[in-house]
């Protein structure tokens, strides 16, 4: 386990977190940090609750007509009727350096939306796709 954030270290959210690569415990590339989710605590402190990934998070950040199209195309390519961006709870982050390291494996994080779309719409329709390889 890589442990906690570096003690006493402070991070600037846009400079140190946005667009950084997220890496799982096996060194696999998970996604990029496209947006951060924040929430107010009852005591008035603002806290980071999650890393958001994928076009559903990036589009609103880009804004304008291009951002709108990014979100529209992403929605079209999702299976769910009301898709949400990939979300990694901040409790899964174990350290931050030039990358953001998470403690759960890529598959368990379930942020691979396009892969699932490809499986559902393309791969599963190929004849023989339901059989185990011989």
């Amino acid at each position, binding site marked *: *386990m890589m*442990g*906690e*954030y570096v*003690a006493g*270290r*402070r*991070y*600037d*959210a*846009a*400079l140190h*977190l*946005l667009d950084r690569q997220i890496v799982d415990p096996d060194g696999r590339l998970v996604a990029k940090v496209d*947006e*951060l*989710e*924040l*929430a*107010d*605590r*009852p005591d008035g*402190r*603002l*806290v*980071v*609750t*999650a890393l*958001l990934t994928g076009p559903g*998070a990036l589009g*609103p*950040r880009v804004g304008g007509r291009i951002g709108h199209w990014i979100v529209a195309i992403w929605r079209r390519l999702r299976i769910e009727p009301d898709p949400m961006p990939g979300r990694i709870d*901040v*409790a899964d*982050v*174990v350290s931050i350096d030039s990358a953001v390291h998470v403690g759960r494996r890529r598959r368990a994080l379930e942020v691979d939306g396009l892969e699932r779309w490809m499986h559902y719409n393309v791969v599963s329709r190929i004849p023989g796709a339901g059989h185990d390889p011989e």
Partner: protein
Amino acid sequence: MTLSDPRRLHDLLGLPVVTVDGRTLGHVNDVRLAPGPALHGLRSELLVDGLVVADRHAGSLLGYDRRAEKGPWLVRVAVRFLHRRGGYAPWSAVHSVEWGDGGHVVLAIDRLDDRDATLT
């Protein structure tokens, strides 16, 4: 602990920063985070420690505005000149936040801390 509905970092970035009497100090250029007390075992939560405020929409400029020792010196000098009126506002100085389009951050102080904008 009960939390509010989720917000996004970009709802905060770029918001005008004003004093309680309406004077504009700049815009939110970045949001500084600091680990809080350990929550789950060794892990901490990431709390918002304060706001990096710039006097223009110049973006982060690759961090040259926040690392005193970062070179090359010509770029460092130029960026620090552009951001000379920027500074740092600790979260404890935030009076209120109106989120989203047309929103703004109101500070309870009338002057930014020009030393704490630099990361240590």
